[in-house]
């Protein structure tokens, strides 16, 4: 087990491992999500209190669960990167941040969309929403910090430090907001808790479990892909990149070059993500 783990940490064997695993995870994730969403939208009965509004749960809860899970994962990877100076773990921190940020934003927005019909307001300063917001800022901090450095390694290790400090901070924020709220608006909190943890029937439960597991599988698939990119970008000079990355897809890439209508032509995406995708000159001497 340990030697297996050790071998996996070397970039080339990780790259091949991810190549094999990611398509399966992605297929599984999308399948589970599709079935779960269908169940959530059309099979599960309407809630007797909230009516159909509760169906947001099948998007909101997986996104919220992922947002927390990804941050903890980032902090664990950060600790590994800082203690053992492992390149793969450094890449893992950087690769997880944008995915985590997107799911955090989704959790926030769906939370608001759920809040409006149930509590009558888009935003309530309760502990979960507020700590989710702080989490989003932490993710944005990691992404910003990563882009502020020209050297990818220094950037990744700085991000690892930030992720570690942030993971201590998130529970503190959560409990401080909870307490801050309970001082002033105790009754809303109580009803809010009841809304968030409804006694759920099994026909409502199984779609939730499906979307939950589906989005986790989806996350891992996407994360592996990002990690691959990150590792290749940082190891661009190494021999294995030439051997196992460039050989196979060579034909595909030259095809695309000729007649492609791709992301490069999409100006909005270009401006938001241009730096990240074209960040290759990093660390160049």
């Amino acid at each position: 087990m340990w030697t297996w783990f050790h071998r996996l940490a070397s970039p080339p064997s990780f790259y091949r491992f991810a190549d094999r695993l990611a398509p399966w995870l992605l297929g599984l994730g999308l399948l589970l999500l599709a079935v779960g969403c269908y169940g959530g939208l059309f099979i599960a009965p309407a809630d007797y209190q909230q009516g159909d509004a509760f169906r947001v749960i099948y998007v909101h809860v997986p996104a919220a669960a992922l947002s927390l899970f990804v941050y903890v994962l980032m902090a664990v990877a950060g600790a590994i990167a800082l203690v053992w100076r492992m390149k793969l773990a450094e890449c893992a921190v950087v690769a997880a941040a944008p995915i985590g940020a997107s799911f955090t934003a989704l959790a926030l927005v769906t939370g608001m969309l759920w809040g409006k019909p149930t509590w009558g307001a888009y935003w309530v300063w309760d502990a979960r929403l507020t700590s989710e917001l702080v989490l989003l800022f932490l993710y944005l901090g990691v992404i910003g910090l990563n882009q502020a450095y020209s050297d990818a390694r220094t950037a990744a290790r700085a991000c690892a430090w930030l992720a570690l400090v942030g993971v201590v901070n998130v529970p503190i924020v959560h409990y401080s907001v909870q307490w801050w709220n309970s001082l002033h608006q105790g009754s809303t909190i109580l009803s809010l808790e009841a809304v968030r943890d409804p006694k759920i029937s099994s026909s409502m439960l199984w779609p939730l479990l499906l979307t939950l597991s589906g989005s986790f599988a989806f996350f891992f698939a996407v994360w592996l892909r990002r990690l691959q990119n990150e590792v290749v970008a940082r190891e661009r000079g190494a021999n294995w990149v030439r051997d196992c990355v460039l050989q196979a897809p060579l034909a595909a890439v030259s095809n695309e070059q000729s007649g492609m209508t791709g992301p490069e032509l999409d100006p909005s995406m270009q401006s938001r993500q241009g730096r990240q995708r074209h960040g290759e000159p990093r660390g160049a001497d």
Partner: protein
Amino acid sequence: MANEGRYCKSQERRRVPHRLHCARNFPALAMSPLSVSDLAVSRGDRTVFSGLSFRVEPGEILHVQGRNGAGKTTLLETLGGLRVQIAGTIAGGPGASERHWLGHRSALNAALTPLENLRFWCALNGAGDSELLPALDQLGVKAQRNRLCGTLSTGQRRRVALSRLLAVKRPWWFLDEPLAGIDAAGLQLITQLLAAHAGEGGTAVVTSHQALPDSLPRLRALALDA
């Protein structure tokens, strides 16, 4: 050593204070050789050099040579303890209180005077500051000791930085480009310092683009390009 004798005579002529080269042997413990084997160091993701092996014997002056970007400073930082290697071992090196590290930056705050900067440095290292004034005097910057470092010239700042080597005696010197920005008299001065240090049994690892004078005893070159 014959070489050294000749050197001392020439020094007397220039009336450099005697104590610069009175023999003071360092404790034998601190003077085990430094042996580097199969060292690989990276800056960021770029491996600067790898498979580097060499030895530095006590009393030697190792001149690290190489073109820009060959990794002279990186090697010195690794030997001095500022950087962690990605592979290889460094054995028998000095402890924290047995080495002097002088980077290509002088570690002098522009808003403080040389004396304040050096006193701070002594306190940081738990050393007394009684030798500071004689050291500044030997390096010819005693008159500037109460001016702000920001008003000193590059060469003067360099000299102030170098006076640390005399203010606190340590057997291992790691000097990064000590000759940069220094005039002919300064070059002579540094040569004398190095010779006296080696004469006392001290060791120095020096990076420099310029050639070090042949008059130095036990001078050896390490070329990083090869």
